[in-house]
């Protein structure tokens, strides 16, 4: 008979209750070892209830719900389909969404144990929660992640990392300050095709890398929302939805399409850009560095957004070119002196063709390899290691996106110091480095 999630979890024992039991048993035994948290135990195979990582989901819209139960861009079955995780809490400022997610969780587990919260702080206050999966809009990503880090929760946070460069840097510092395992939801880091493409490039199979062409489409995003005011629906806590973003009246189209507005998002530059610039960083060996000069299109000699790096590599944002030169425009094209590699969500193509058959050898560069993005994170929690899309990497990658948006917005080249991660003598650009947050939210 097929073993179902329900049959396995019909009578779950919470990790916290077991710890209490263990602690009680230890009274009087001074040498009894400190109780080991769930995240420190277990590795693969069947997982005892006490060893499951206890998880809360914060933000359960489209992508957030996929993380709960599985979907096209998350792992099959989602977190509730895993044997080594117990989802105990859902948080969303939209009542309909959180109730739907609770129903899905309870349906999977065959019980009614899943708790729901409107305010993420209430979920973070739960001592039994080991880790959180954050899938709100990016206006909230840094703040909720930082609060989670201070509360000792390990973090999987959807991309993009932030709305500004300052937020990404603050988040990186906080994650390091508190020793938290952080995985950004840039799941291309856990994809074979992208990893292999980057390994081909880094190991010189296309010669010296000259150029990375990134197929991020969409118009420039520094649009302000001017949609008219509408009554706030009863199911939505609009104040918490806005969070640190500037206050403005509610409008359903704005809430439904927030990615179009700069208060909430960097648009496609940070949406798909969070993935594809990250791949450019990975394959070029620049993942812990950045460009020195960012040049927006000027309608003359510079046709597309171009980044220049110290090592002579350029990145360009040119979806027309990736569509022309690759089977799928929505991907990344690495151009070297001896060949090319195009990679996208489903496959990769190489020039010459036989590069695709290459097996990376023992004396070559092997990049971080993961079975899938969820598993990579959960393994890192158990072994207290760093997963593939650690904050040090994702903060740098999202900075690429933000720098491009700032260059677009200023309409002129921008100089950047990748070592200090600051603009070079550019007060106008400095004005776009950070943003004021709505009280009481702060970095």
């Amino acid at each position: 008979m097929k073993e179902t999630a329900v049959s396995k979890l019909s009578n779950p024992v919470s990790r916290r209750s077991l710890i209490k039991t263990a602690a009680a048993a230890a009274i009087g035994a001074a040498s009894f070892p400190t109780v080991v948290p769930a995240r420190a135990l277990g590795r693969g195979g069947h997982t005892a209830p006490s060893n499951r990582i206890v998880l809360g989901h914060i933000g359960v819209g489209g992508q957030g719900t996929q993380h709960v139960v599985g979907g096209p861009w998350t792992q099959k079955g989602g977190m509730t389909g895993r044997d080594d995780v117990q989802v105990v809490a859902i948080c969303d400022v939209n009542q309909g969404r959180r109730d739907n997610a609770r129903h899905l969780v309870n349906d999977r587990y065959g019980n009614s144990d899943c708790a729901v919260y409107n305010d993420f702080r209430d979920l973070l206050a739960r001592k039994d929660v080991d880790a959180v999966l954050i899938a709100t809009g990016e206006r909230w990503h840094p703040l909720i992640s930082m609060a989670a880090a201070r509360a000792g929760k390990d973090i999987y946070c959807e991309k993009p990392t932030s709305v500004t460069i300052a937020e990404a840097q603050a988040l990186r510092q906080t994650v390091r300050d508190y020793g938290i395992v952080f995985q950004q939801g840039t799941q291309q880091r856990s994809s074979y095709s992208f990893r292999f493409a980057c390994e081909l490039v880094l190991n010189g199979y296309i010669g010296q890398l000259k150029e990375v062409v990134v197929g991020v489409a969409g118009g420039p995003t520094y649009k302000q929302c001017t949609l008219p005011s509408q009554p706030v629906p009863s199911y939505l806590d609009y104040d918490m939805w806005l969070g640190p973003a500037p206050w403005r009246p509610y409008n359903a189209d704005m809430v439904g399409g927030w990615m179009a507005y700069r208060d909430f998002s960097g648009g496609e530059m940070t949406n798909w850009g969070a993935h594809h610039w990250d791949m450019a960083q990975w394959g070029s060996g620049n993942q812990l560095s950045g460009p020195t000069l960012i040049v927006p299109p000027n309608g003359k000699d510079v046709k597309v957004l171009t980044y220049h790096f110290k090592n002579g590599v350029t990145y360009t944002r040119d979806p027309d070119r990736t569509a022309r030169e690759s089977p799928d425009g929505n991907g990344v094209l690495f151009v070297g002196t001896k060949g090319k590699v195009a990679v996208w969500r489903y496959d990769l193509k190489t020039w010459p063709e036989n590069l695709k058959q290459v097996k990376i050898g023992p004396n070559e560069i092997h990049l971080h390899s993961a079975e899938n993005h969820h598993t990579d994170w959960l393994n890192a929690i158990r072994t207290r290691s760093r997963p593939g899309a650690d904050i040090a990497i994702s903060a740098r990658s999202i900075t690429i996106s933000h720098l491009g948006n700032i260059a677009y917005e200023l309409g002129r080249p921008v100089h950047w110091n990748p070592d200090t991660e600051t603009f070079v003598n550019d007060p106008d650009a400095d004005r776009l480095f950070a943003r004021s947050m709505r009280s009481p939210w702060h970095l």
Partner: protein
Amino acid sequence: MKRHYRYSIAAGLTAGLAAITCAAGAQTPDADIPQLKSFVFQKDGSLVDRIGLETASARRTGGSAKAHVAALLASVVASDATFDAKEFACRQLVFVAGPTEVKTLVAAAKDPALAQYAVGVLANIPGKAVNDAVIAALPTLPTDSQFYLVKLLAERNDARAAATLTYFMMGANLERASSAAASLARISGPSAHEVLVAAFKASDEKRKPGLGAALILRAGRLAAAGNSADAAQLYSICDASGLPMLRAAALRGRAASNPSGSASLVLAALKENGTPRQSMAADILRTSSNPTLRSQVGAALPALTPHTQTIVLKALEDQGERADWPGIRGLASNGTGEVKLAAIEALGKISTPSALPVLLKSAASGSAAEKLAAQDSICRLRGAEVDAGLRAALLNGSTPGAIRQISAGLLARRRAVSAFGDISSLLGTKDEKLRAACYAALRDSGPASLLPTVLAHALTLPADARDNAIEACVEIARRGTTEAERTGPLLTALDAAKQPADKLTLLTVLNQVGGLRALMALKKAYSSPTIEVREGALALLSEWPTEEPLELLLKAAKSGLTPRTKAIGLRGYLKMIAANEQRAPEKTLALLNSIAPEVTRPEDKRQILSAIAKVHSIDALRFVSGYLKQDGVQSEAESAAVEIGRTTASAFPDETAAILGPIASSSSDDAVKAAASAALAAPAKAAGFITAWELSAQYTRDGADYKTLFDVVFPPETAGSAAGNWRLMTPITNAEQPWLMDILAVYPGEQKVAYMQTAVNAPADLDVTLDLGSDDGIKAWVNGALVLTDNTARAAAPGEEKVQIHLKQGWNTLMLKVTQNVMGWGACARLIGADGNTPAGLKYSVPSANKAR
């Protein structure tokens, strides 16, 4: 077709600017910005778009143009303009405001709703004027505005903010208290420092985490500025707090500020099993370049708890340093469980070739997981000496057999080209396991140039011991870059071969390698004078992946020289028919009919029934019904009928019931009886969802994903049921989703599209709701008219789409187009009347059945 992103960003930006400039005509900031005063948020954003561009232009021009636009915008902020206008003006002032606008902005901040915007501007205006204006205004402001502005002062490192921040820090609003503390942490100098420390020490449990976070923030800033003494004081306070997360954060700071003493600190924390400090200690170890720390941890490693050993090993692994740690080798040899495995993995990532003996031992004699991990680690070990060590192990006759075998495989995995000669030299060994390992190694990595050598060895083996050799020859041959390279040595050897067994070995390899020359050789072999070769070739032809040999097999089945040849031909013919489940059902039925009259033996009839059971059509069911009464095949016929009936029961309920009903009531096999009953009952289990569906062929386009395919017109859209290679769908492939018509069960894979069609008979004209779910995108046509389109990616669930449609009296057609992104693929549909129930009297069939009506 390629996916096109026709929106050129450069062109789009330029065109957008031009269009707005043209629309603006002679409009200027002087004309536009005053109009802003009455602006309220609306869909028409042309005015604010123009002002945005005018501001950007002034910013680029600088000087008086910038100052002028700033003054115009400030005048809006200072006026009785709408909130929306002031908000927008502040956003633009971020780019152009200077000291002149400070007074206006501070005044604007009195409105708490505007304070955030005003502060956003003030934060970017350099100079003391901002601070002074804020200090002067602070007592007059409402609390909410005070909070914004005092935090601004702190960001600007103005110690005058300390008192007000302290007030907020001690207030009842905890979020605001944390925020105020974080601001205090950013103010340099002793007063803010002392206030913060005192407040933390005096704070209760609820306030402590927020204030503690401020201490950590401040300590980090002090350390970065070189003030390690004050930083150390704060870290000590945090460490003494007893709060686990603050203690963990303090550990990093203390270790960083005291490198010489960090080793003992970190080591002590590493021993705190399962605490945040232990995690932090592992992270410090991961990034530390302190040799004392690493050596002390290395020395302590064997005595640590297994969990600690594991996280230490992971930390060292992440550091990526190549080091020869005896402790790790010790754990890889003598550790247990997870630790041993982690040590084996770590050796591969950080160790030197000196780890080879330990890893080889684990690879040969560890648990299954250890063997795999050890082999992976050996494949990662760098250095030519590793290959040399493996070659030595392989060639040395005194090496334990298991290690020699593993060495052969690892040399292949390491692509040690120079070792292939050594490996092939051992193909003649009498050690069967070693020989098999060598063939396997060459199978996995041997170049095509080795094919003649490997073939020669293979043909020296007894005929019944050649399986490994044949596999190796196949894979090596497939590595040839041309057909001549792939099959040339095989054909040459075939010409030279004398023994039937050798010929059959070579034909077997050719059959696996494929290609036109291989097919010709197999066909030629069928005319061999040696019956053994002839029949062997015929059997191999029945395995050919395409249907080219079908005619030859039919001919052999009908007119083979011997009964055995006929039997091989018949079995091959039926096997080839059954192998292609994508063939149209009517074509398969025609192929079976072409041989059925020749088949008289029960065992051959059973093969026909086995093949027909995979043909899901009403004609196939009719075909099978003719066998139900035949002696010797009744059981197989019933099974085939039930298998087909599972699919036909929805679209052809009456005829299916006529054939399956007697089986359900009187079969001698209880399992078949139950299956027949279940097949007949299945449509009712779908609870109102339509289960009578035909599925088209699947469609793809090079480079087009599901999103693009959604709007590509394929034959069913233009020719309906006349095109599409339609086949009946089997309902209820998953008991948990009885409503789902599962396309993935028919067509595995991703980035495709297919169509489903059904026929609905309404007793009268009806207005109903078409309730749909799909995985992924969906279009729907009713009687040829498009009624729904949703290009999406999702899991299927009932009720995802609801469309009002009209059914005419009599037969109506419903066609769905369903795209496949990744994972699941399918759809569900039902019709709901005004009362929320399925309308009475509806009947379902499929369009191809209706054509005959």
